[in-house]
């Protein structure tokens, strides 16, 4: 491919709003059920459209697509992607202070965040989706932390764990701390507590999953590039 070619020429052409796109049908020629009677013996379902489901009264229109009554699941690719993103949030393994211990506690046997798809903790920002800022952010650490945030690939989310990161907490009056990390980076979920219990962190991460699914996160609106002045 010619690298000089403008990007717009290669972009996917989307039909207009009123146009009906021809569905892409992928035939299953690779796999067949062991029992020939399974899945209704491969028969076509009587119900083929959402309108039929609604008319039959078996499910409301909102539930119809997941009800199993249809052979296909009509949806948007974005919706599926968000579902995947929300259920495999990979946090960055970056603890700053006290809250980091409770973050680890949330990840280990007793609380086990893995059950809700908030695992594994990645040590590299290149592989992480969520930055859980756990602990007091000092002026000296602010630069490296923002650099970590900038190194994470989009889409990404930020969780402020603990009072220190939400507002400064018990160190608000200190000369060397930053009163809330929202001064240096966008935050999606705030979890108060000094430190919050592991259950609190898990609750906050579940809220974040809802944010991801609802597309309410900060990342679509966020300008690309450094979000903080260079002298922080």
């Amino acid at each position, binding site marked *: 491919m010619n690298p000089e070619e403008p990007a717009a020429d290669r972009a996917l052409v989307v039909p207009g709003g009123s146009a009906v796109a021809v569905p892409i049908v992928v035939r299953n020629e690779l796999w067949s059920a062991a029992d020939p009677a399974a899945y209704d013996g491969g028969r076509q379902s009587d119900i083929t459209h959402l309108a039929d489901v609604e008319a039959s009264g078996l499910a409301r229109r909102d539930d119809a697509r997941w009800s199993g009554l249809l052979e296909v699941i009509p949806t948007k690719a974005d919706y599926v992607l968000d579902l995947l993103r929300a259920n495999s949030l990979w946090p960055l*393994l*970056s*603890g*700053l*202070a*006290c809250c*980091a*211990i*409770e973050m*680890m*506690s949330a990840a*280990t*046997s*007793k609380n086990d965040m893995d059950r809700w798809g908030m695992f594994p903790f990645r*040590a590299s920002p290149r592989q992480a989706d969520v930055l859980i800022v756990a*602990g*007091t952010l*000092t002026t*000296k*650490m602010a630069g*490296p*932390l923002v*650099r*970590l945030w*900038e*190194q994470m*690939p*989009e889409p990404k989310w930020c969780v402020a764990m603990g009072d220190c990161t939400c507002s400064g907490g*018990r*160190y608000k*009056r*200190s*000369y*060397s*701390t930053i009163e809330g990390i929202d001064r240096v980076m966008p935050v999606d979920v705030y979890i108060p507590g*000094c*430190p919050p*219990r592991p259950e609190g962190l898990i609750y906050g991460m579940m809220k974040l999953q809802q944010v991801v699914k609802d597309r309410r996160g900060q990342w679509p609106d966020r*300008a*690309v*590039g*450094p979000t903080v002045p260079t002298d922080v």
Partner: protein
Amino acid sequence: MTAPSRTGPQPSADDPRVMLDRDIGVFEPVPPYPPRTEREAEFYTLGDGQMLLNMGPQHPSTHGVLRVVLKLDGEKVVDLDPVLGYLHRGVEKLCENADYHQVISQVDPLEYISSLFCEWSPVIAFEKLLDVDVPRRAEYIRVLSGELNRIASHALFMGWFALDLGGLTPILWSFIERDEIVEMLAALTGQRMLFNYFRIGGVNGDLNHEFMSRLGDWMSRATKQIESNLTLLNQNEIFVRRARGLGVIDTAGALRMCMTGPNLRATGVPFDVRRAHPYSVYPELDFDVPTRTEGDSLARYLLRMEEIKQSIRIIDQCLHQMPDGPIMAKLPRLLRPRPGRAYAAIEGPRGQYSTYAISDGTDQPFRMRIHDPSFIHLQSVGVLMQNNLIADTMAIMASLDPVMGGVDK
């Protein structure tokens, strides 16, 4: 090409052209200023075949936000330069602007794994300033909760040390122990980590039913449980061979480096503040001060595990000897000690915590100096790590068990 403008359509972050224009990704090991001391000039002058490598401040195994610049010759660490201050919260200054009761909540998050010990030494120093007699029941409760906290701290040490040597399982086990103990202490104090429980002249609350029942449950199987956890590591050939002979320091070196606590006792010096300069009710309690003579990482690990058993002994005696009575001395709401100085030292899980407080007669300490063992132990890292491999640096640092909150204060 020019840098992307902030207005108009934004290019995708995945576009490599955007990444090229941005000055991110490299943490320069060399400081941007000319060397300020002879030591800096020596360290940042590279010999033949040497290179500098930056590690941290965000590194999964530095136990917090420590940054270390390593000077390497091949894979050998020739020298290193720790860069501190990434968690400096100005606690000592905050304490000077808080009254004596508020100081307790300010010093709590210093060593966040063993918060009760951070409270303990200032509280004793203030009691000396005020000349208060603490009720005996309060002293017993302090010892009881403190020893529980020591076990929680040592249990976490076991998991982290193994994690830095590459073992993933022990940390799961150690967090099970730690979670049980902190839930128990939460029933007593109301918080899981930063307890804020000790008061000047006593403790905040008396023993309650939930704490006692959780403690009874745990005590009935604690020894067995900890023994079974230890078999994970003590009989593991890989772990023992890796940790033995790693980061050896002799008695003279440890004393020169001002080591205290388990790190000093692992070199054969039976110095324990609880015995050497007794405080609280420790003279009435029967426990041993374990020592080892090897002075390597394995000795420091085994010594801490031995201390867990001694702590269980102390807890058992506390429960049997616990007297009745008040848990707080009678004190005015506003504390104004007479002008003077007080020093108090206690034995924490990492070594000697001590506080030097100066009162000028007002309701706030004029100056409060906190001596923290983590900071003192971190200075010996340079001695221990020389001519070790990169992979061993974190293991040696983990065997000293520093907590960055205490290092940077």
